[in-house]
């Protein structure tokens, strides 16, 4: 079994290094193929491990070697394959494999084809390290690793120039990449602090040791640790106020968006909360905050998705929104439901993104849904997939999203928190609306793309076939809810609905479904026939607010970036003009006083003699005065 762990873990690394060897050479198809195969191997290993665990309930814990050892700190490279990590592994490797295969088609014209696979595989490796590590530091390795890969991949088309925000809200891929990295770093600091708190209070960063020690820790320590860790999670999972990078990250190639910014990396924050559930479960205030923030983000992101015109950004907002759901669940203590939604979401969201990628590929990188329409004729397969995924996203029975999202909303109800409950329900309706607004605008109605002279075409067959596992899972994943529950509660606390909720479960489901259907119908009415733009709506305050993402990016720019740059310039000025001038000033004072003093060296002997006499008098006076003074 140990070797399987290593295969699962290192196959992507090998793939990355292999592809990396050819990174600077022109496209080689075999690179893509071999990478995909290696990823598939990783998936198979993960799947076998999953089966092994579910069948034998044996947790696999391997220690590769020591990493950092100093003082009392001892961090090994240890890997833990248990219920939670194996779930993540399966999800990650599965989606990755699909995305790898997909990329063979999607990136076929890109001159950096090989490099792309190298990055992509490296990302998978980092993600696996993140989920499989048996300690917080290892998790942090993966955490930062995915950050870097995300940076590399968002900025994959680094050669694009910066443009203004009006032209492209993300300015440029490289800008977006930097934004993502830096914002994540802000959160990472929180995460690091969390690790420090844990280390100095427990003496170790190993999960098992830490969790065992929780009863000995004071609430205040636990609370600060939980806060710090959650700050880390906020960054990776793009929670408000660190959310702006996620939509900008859409500058990356679409497979990247699918894999990293929908299915896997962004869920790392949720994973962290789930992983560290023993800490969060004893810090109710923090957990409640998480739930509230999650709910808020769910609504907040959904609202922005309502009006957006960019195909990928809409999906990005929906990702954000769904992450909010997951946090809501995790915050409310329903960790397994959060994990379940995470997995289900991974499938349908990746599918959605890949579908969007197909559209983009077919539309020659056009992303504005206002310029599409009627694509279902030319892109049948994609239409099917995206429709399916959108349905799943909207939470329509019996697709995956229905089971998971419904459970979250039920949880909110079960916790008796009506506000969260209502918001989540409303958001569910909004989700359905914007998902189908997008579907209808893209695939139905008039063929607006013709005005632009674009000739869209369907994606390669094998790509569509490769996407099918996701499509299937998007449909059926929810059906395994019960099985998953029994599987995961070996590790995660079970979340039981109260009697009362049980009774009302059906009604809740109906309400949710009603909202979902309502959203779809609204979208159908509005957009099925084609695009109807109304000046009035678009000029309204709310529309403006939403389309500009509540002006938050601009606000950040104005309040943080610009002042920081100005302050930096100021600091530089201070450095050269004040500190350095002071230092030079000392030298200058000495030099100038030397210049002044040398005046006494006039060359005239008479002056010298005067100096001598004056010196004599001074010495005599000083001597006599000092005698008098004594």
């Amino acid at each position: 079994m140990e070797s399987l762990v290593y295969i699962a873990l290192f196959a992507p690394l090998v793939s990355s290094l292999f592809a990396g060897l050819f990174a600077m050479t022109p496209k080689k198809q075999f690179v893509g193929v071999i990478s995909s195969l290696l990823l598939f191997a990783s998936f198979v290993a993960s799947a076998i491990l999953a089966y092994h665990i579910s069948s034998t309930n044996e947790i696999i814990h391997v220690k590769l070697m020591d990493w950092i050892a100093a003082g009392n700190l001892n961090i090994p490279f240890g890997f833990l394959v248990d219920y939670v990590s194996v779930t993540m592994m399966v999800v990650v490797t599965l989606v990755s494999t699909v995305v790898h295969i997909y990329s063979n088609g999607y990136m076929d014209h890109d001159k950096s084809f090989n490099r792309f696979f190298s990055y992509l595989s490296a990302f998978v490796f980092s993600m696996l390290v993140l989920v499989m590590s048996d300690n917080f530091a290892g998790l942090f390795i993966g955490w930062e690793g995915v950050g870097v890969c995300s940076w590399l991949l968002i900025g994959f088309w680094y050669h694009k120039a910066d443009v203004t925000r009006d032209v492209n809200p993300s300015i440029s891929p490289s800008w977006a990449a930097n934004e993502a990295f830096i914002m994540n770093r802000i959160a990472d600091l929180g995460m690091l602090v969390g690790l420090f708190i844990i280390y100095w209070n427990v003496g170790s960063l190993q999960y098992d040791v830490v969790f065992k020690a929780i009863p000995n820790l004071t609430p205040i320590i636990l609370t600060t640790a939980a806060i710090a860790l959650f700050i880390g999670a906020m960054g990776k999972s793009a929670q408000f106020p660190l959310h702006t990078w996620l939509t900008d990250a859409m500058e990356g190639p679409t497979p990247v968006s699918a894999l990293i910014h929908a299915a896997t990396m962004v869920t790392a924050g949720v994973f962290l909360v789930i992983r560290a559930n023993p800490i969060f479960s004893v810090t109710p205030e923090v957990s409640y905050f998480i739930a509230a923030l999650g709910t808020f983000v769910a609504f907040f992101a959904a609202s922005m998705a309502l009006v957006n015109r960019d195909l990928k950004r809409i999906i990005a907002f929906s990702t954000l929104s769904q992450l909010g759901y997951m946090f809501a669940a995790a915050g409310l203590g329903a960790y397994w439901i959060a994990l379940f939604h995470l997995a289900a979401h991974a499938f349908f969201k990746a599918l959605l993104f890949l579908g969007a990628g197909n559209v983009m590929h077919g539309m020659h990188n056009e992303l504005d849904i206002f310029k599409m329409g009627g694509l279902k004729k030319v892109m049948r397969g994609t239409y099917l997939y995206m429709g399916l995924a959108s349905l799943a996203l909207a939470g329509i029975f019996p697709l995956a999203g229905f089971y998971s999202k419904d459970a979250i909303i039920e949880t909110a109800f079960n916790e008796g928190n009506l506000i969260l409950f209502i918001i989540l329900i409303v958001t569910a309706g909004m989700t359905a609306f914007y998902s189908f607004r997008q579907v209808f605008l893209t695939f139905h109605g008039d063929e607006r793309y013709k005005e632009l002279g674009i000739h869209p075409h369907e994606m390669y067959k094998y790509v569509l076939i490769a996407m099918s596992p996701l499509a299937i899972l998007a449909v059926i994943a929810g059906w395994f809810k019960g099985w998953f529950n029994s599987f995961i509660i070996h590790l995660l606390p079970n979340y039981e609905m109260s009697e009362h909720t049980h009774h009302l479960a059906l009604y809740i489901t109906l309400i949710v479904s009603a909202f979902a259907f309502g959203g779809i119908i609204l979208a159908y009415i509005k957009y099925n026939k084609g695009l109807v733009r109304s000046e009035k709506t678009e000029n309204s305050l709310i529309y403006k607010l939403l389309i500009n993402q509540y002006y938050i990016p601009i606000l950040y720019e104005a309040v943080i970036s610009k002042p920081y740059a100005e302050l930096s310039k100021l600091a530089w000025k201070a450095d050269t003009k004040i500190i350095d001038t002071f230092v030079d000033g000392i030298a200058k004072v000495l030099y100038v006083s030397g210049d002044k003093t040398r005046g006494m060296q006039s060359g005239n002997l008479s002056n010298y003699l005067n100096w001598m006499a004056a010196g004599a008098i001074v010495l005599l006076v000083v001597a006599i005065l000092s005698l008098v003074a004594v």
Partner: protein
Amino acid sequence: MFEQIAFYLFSVLTIGLFLITVFSKNVLYAMTSLASGMVLIAGFFFLVGADFLGVVQLIVYVGAVMALYAFGMMFFNVTKDLKEKTTSNIWVMIIGVTVALLMTLMFGGAINPDAIYASLPINSSMTNPQAVGMALFTKYLVPFEVAAIMLLIAMIGGIVLAGKKMDKSLTDAEDEKIQPKDVK
């Protein structure tokens, strides 16, 4: 009484003469008054019983030194009135008076000769020149001889510096241009 009169007379005269030396614009006056001052100082020596010193003072100073200065003066052609821009008088006076005051302060204090142990007591049985001679050729023989060397140096120095050979400098001349005859 005689001593007192002599002291004050000599003092006033010496001070006056030396002031002339210092302040006179006329070189001749200055030199003459210096020579006279020296004579008076020899007088002081006689007053305090340093007869030998008085004689030496007369011979060496008034005789040799002043003669040298006189020759020098003629050589330098400074017999006329001096046209020198002397240093500001006020400044000089301040310094002079201050030094004088400091000296007075220093010397004005009580000095008790009895507390002093004479390291080279004057033998009252000898005349002053005898005593001086005795000291010079015993205890101070070495300084005496060194002084002789010093005088030799002064002589050689005087000869060299004033000699003709200094007229043509080898230091300033490029080596290639030095004629054999320039080098002795």
